[in-house]
């Protein structure tokens, strides 16, 4: 994966398949601590401790179309190769939390990439699921919560309406730029 945001897209798709009703994604950039932390938390079907351990193995997957599952191993390796850390906490029937910490200034850290596009894709193409996305840079932050969006919009307006899709994109991009001052991450 060339970008951290693509890892997020990929791993969040696992939460979609785990039939989550709420997926919380946090991206926190802390220049003072020299970290970039990604947390993906869902309330999906969860895993047993054995499964949670084995998803970190490339030769484990629940799918049948191919024999390897590289999503989680890619993400883990990307984080650990920057002097960071990676962990999965999961409970059967409760949900799963994936946390990856990257060394922000480490030479091997890939760029965050187009995170706004990733979040927009997740929201628009998985309308039956709620998302709460938090972006932090230093002490600043912003949140996009689809539950709040639905409250404003009322019934019957789909996120895939052009006006709404465009609003989501603009909201994410504008607020990200105001949060991190357009820093290259």
């Amino acid at each position, binding site marked *: *994966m*060339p970008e951290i945001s*693509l890892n997020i*897209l*990929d791993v969040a*798709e696992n939460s979609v*398949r785990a039939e989550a009703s709420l997926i919380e994604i946090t991206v926190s950039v802390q220049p003072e601590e020299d970290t970039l932390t990604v947390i993906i938390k869902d309330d999906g079907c969860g895993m047993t401790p054995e499964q949670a351990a084995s998803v970190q193995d490339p030769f484990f997957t629940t*799918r049948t*179309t*191919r024999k390897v*599952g*590289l*999503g989680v191993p*890619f993400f883990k390796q990307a984080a650990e190769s920057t002097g960071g850390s990676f962990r999965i906490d999961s409970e059967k029937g409760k949900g799963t939390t994936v946390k990856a910490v990257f060394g922000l200034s480490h030479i091997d850290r890939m760029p965050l990439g*187009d995170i706004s*596009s*990733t979040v927009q*894709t997740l929201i*628009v*193409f998985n309308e039956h699921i709620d998302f709460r996305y938090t972006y932090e840079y230093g002490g600043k932050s*912003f949140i996009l919560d689809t539950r*709040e*969006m639905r409250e*404003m*919009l*009322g019934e*019957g*307006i*789909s996120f*895939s*309406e*052009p*006006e*709404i*899709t465009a*609003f989501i994109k*603009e*909201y994410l991009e*504008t*607020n990200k730029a*105001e949060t991190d001052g357009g820093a290259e991450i």
Partner: protein
Amino acid sequence: MKSLEELRAIREKMQGKVGVRAESEDQIRVVVGMATCGIASGARPVLTALSDAVQEQNLSEKISVTQTGCIGLCQYEPIVEVMVPGKEKVTYVKMTPEKALEVLRLHLLGGQVVSKYTLSAAQEQNA
């Protein structure tokens, strides 16, 4: 900072024109593979290009763009499958946003399969 309050205004503007779009049987279905293999080879910009173009050209009633998991042809990703009602499914491989827009113009709108990008063309080349 942009506020969600703007959604209220959008809602007002949209009153009356919503709820008209239902999945219909004569809709063309376009499916983009978005598993690890697809995402790693560039499926996100392909999906975005297609769905943006469909929205911009007001084609949402005619064409539905959705995503799917791994199709099992990882070496050919990004893959775009086109299902036109009454016709056989066409599988486009190694897509880019540019190629996908060509498929939109020639196949989805023009009705002409873009043979050079199909799975069978790629398989013949490898044979």
